[in-house]
């Protein structure tokens, strides 16, 4: 007789970040086997993109990753610009940086809320989801949409900023900084938070490198790898910043890394707003979008998302439609290579917060 039994975490389960399922096998209260079961969000993006013009694809790409859509737009735009050999205007670079960092702030506050909820603290999730909403208001102002912006496009950004928007961004940064004091008091300095997460779900430096981790998992293990620093895109090359790292690689370190990244993002927004040229074009001269033919070639464009390296591998064949687009979501590796190994040996109570602390985003690998 077997002592173990199977339990489905998801797809209809609050402990799973999105529509996704993890089959776990438990012995008593301890996980002995974990297997991800993706595909609930499969929409055949890569197939659909092959059948659409470059300009039509703009409507599709933000929908690849729901919590932070702007990274898709940036990576797609960079891939097309790379193939066409276009240099975007200075002001557009800064606007991209501000938008991307604002999206990161929105994502990280959202992540904080869901992480606290998996640990049982619903107060923080109520607060942080509410505060994230004010960032969406700022997006609403520049493009008229809260979640899917389609603001960054090949050649620059779609339109210039509305007057006074920079000041409202700075106001928001100030507001979030004030709120972060409360967040720290209720969650990040909470003794029980430390107790629940310290030493849990450890990914050591060697393991992180071997398994191909990126983003916060790698930074929490002590490797300062960040696309913003290593291969600067947008205006990151002009800004002055350091990548935060910690050494333990456990769930606590990953949460603290994300907390530090939030500080870093707020700082980067302030720097970018200060350094941004006040006038100038925001989009390079582009050919007629419906006839826009992209020269044949292959390229790989990557950006740093809140979860890790997010990349687009694009192949064009000298027509108006891409020949093949492959999307690299950071969660792909994080789920199927890392989470399935890290979950083994965890207690049932820790499964949910381990998944969220690795920041598994199902739409990224279902596509």
């Amino acid at each position, binding site marked *: 007789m077997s002592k173990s039994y199977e339990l489905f975490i998801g797809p209809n389960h609050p402990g799973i970040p999105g529509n996704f399922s993890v089959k776990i096998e438990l012995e008593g209260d301890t996980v002995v086997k974990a297997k991800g079961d993706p595909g609930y969000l499969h929409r055949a993006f890569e197939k659909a993109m092959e059948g659409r013009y470059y300009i039509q694809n703009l409507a599709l790409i933000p929908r690849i990753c729901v919590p932070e859509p702007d990274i898709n737009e940036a990576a797609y735009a960079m891939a097309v610009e790379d193939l066409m050999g276009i240099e975007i205007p200075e002001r557009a670079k800064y606007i991209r940086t501000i938008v991307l960092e604002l999206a990161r702030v929105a994502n990280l506050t959202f992540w904080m809320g869901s992480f606290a909820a998996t640990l*049982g*603290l619903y*107060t923080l999730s109520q*607060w942080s989801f509410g505060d994230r909403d004010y960032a969406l208001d700022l997006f609403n102002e520049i493009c008229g949409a809260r979640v899917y912006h389609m603001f960054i496009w090949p050649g620059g950004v779609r339109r210039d900023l509305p007057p006074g928007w920079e000041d409202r961004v700075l106001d928001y940064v100030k507001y979030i900084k004030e709120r972060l004091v409360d967040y720290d008091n*209720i969650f990040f300095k909470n003794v*029980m938070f430390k107790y629940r997460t310290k030493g849990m779900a450890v990914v050591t430096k060697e393991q992180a490198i071997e398994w191909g981790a990126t983003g916060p998992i790698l930074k929490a293990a002590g490797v300062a790898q960040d696309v913003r620093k290593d291969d600067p895109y947008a205006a990151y090359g002009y800004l002055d910043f350091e990548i935060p790292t910690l050494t333990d690689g456990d769930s606590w370190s990953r949460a603290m890394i994300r907390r530090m990244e939030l500080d870093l993002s707020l700082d980067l927004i302030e720097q970018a707003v200060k350094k941004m040229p006040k006038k100038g074009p925001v989009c390079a001269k582009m050919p007629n979008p419906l006839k826009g033919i992209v020269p044949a070639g292959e390229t790989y464009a990557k950006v740093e998302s809140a979860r890790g390296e997010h990349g687009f591998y694009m192949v064009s064949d000298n027509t108006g439609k891409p020949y093949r687009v492959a999307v690299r979501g950071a969660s792909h590796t994080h789920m199927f290579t890392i989470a399935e190994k890290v979950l083994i040996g965890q207690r049932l109570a*820790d499964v*949910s*917060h381990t998944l969220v602390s690795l920041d598994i985003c199902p739409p990224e690998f279902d596509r």
Partner: protein
Amino acid sequence: MVSTILIAICVPLLAFAIGLTFIMFKLKITARVQRRYGPPIIQPIYNLLKLLLKEDNISHGVIFSLGPIIALAGSILAVFFIPIPGLNLLTGSGDLIALLYIMAIGSLGMALGAGNTANPNASIGISRALTLMFGYDLPLVIIVISVILQYHTTNLADIVAAQANGHWTLWTLPLSAIVGFVVTYGALGEHPFDIITAPHEVATGPMVEYGGKHLGFLMINHMFHIYIEIALFVDLFLGGASNLFWFYIKMFGVFFIMMLCDEVFLRFKIDDAVRFFWKWPTVVALISLIIVLVK
């Protein structure tokens, strides 16, 4: 005779009403701490009536349906053992010890019903519920013994009477009172002890397969449960009360403090919770017991 029947009807209704108002306040307090407006104040009544008016009921067998009723019956029985100012009914000798036994029926009834479903989440939830009960019962029994030794009686009404004129057990046995608060808090299953229902882990645990009328009964049971736990704490440590108004105010004070604690704690794991209960509350309760014995 008529008055006895009248009291027999009134006491559970009163307990239910008090539990219901507490749930109402809980929703509002939670909302305000979370910077929300919150649901309408009579939302729990809507919820309850809606559940009872559901057209379908899915049952997984007789025991599954019987579980919530056993739990509810146990809770109603326990209500009679707690003295309410002016309405004493079953408060004969030895009731405190009987009460401790009867209070366990609620959890056992739920375990019985939920155990009849094939859902592993429910089974895990039950094992957690019983383990947690095992955890907080040890310090609870110790402090009850120390209170019994203090007043040389097991009769709750006598214990309340002995605390008259402000000689609350809270002042005479402060250590026991603190432990009593922690144990009551744990028994209510608020954070960090909401391990039983933990939605992110076991998807509301024992209640996972319950819906409609069954869930309605479980919600009523929960209201009784809140009343019993807090009323017991008030009677043991805050000197009961001479009239209903003060009784309610004292209970509400205790509940309010508990709700504020509920908002800032994360969830324990089940073994941590049991370890916690068997460590500090038990040690402090034992010290308190020794103090009583030495006095």
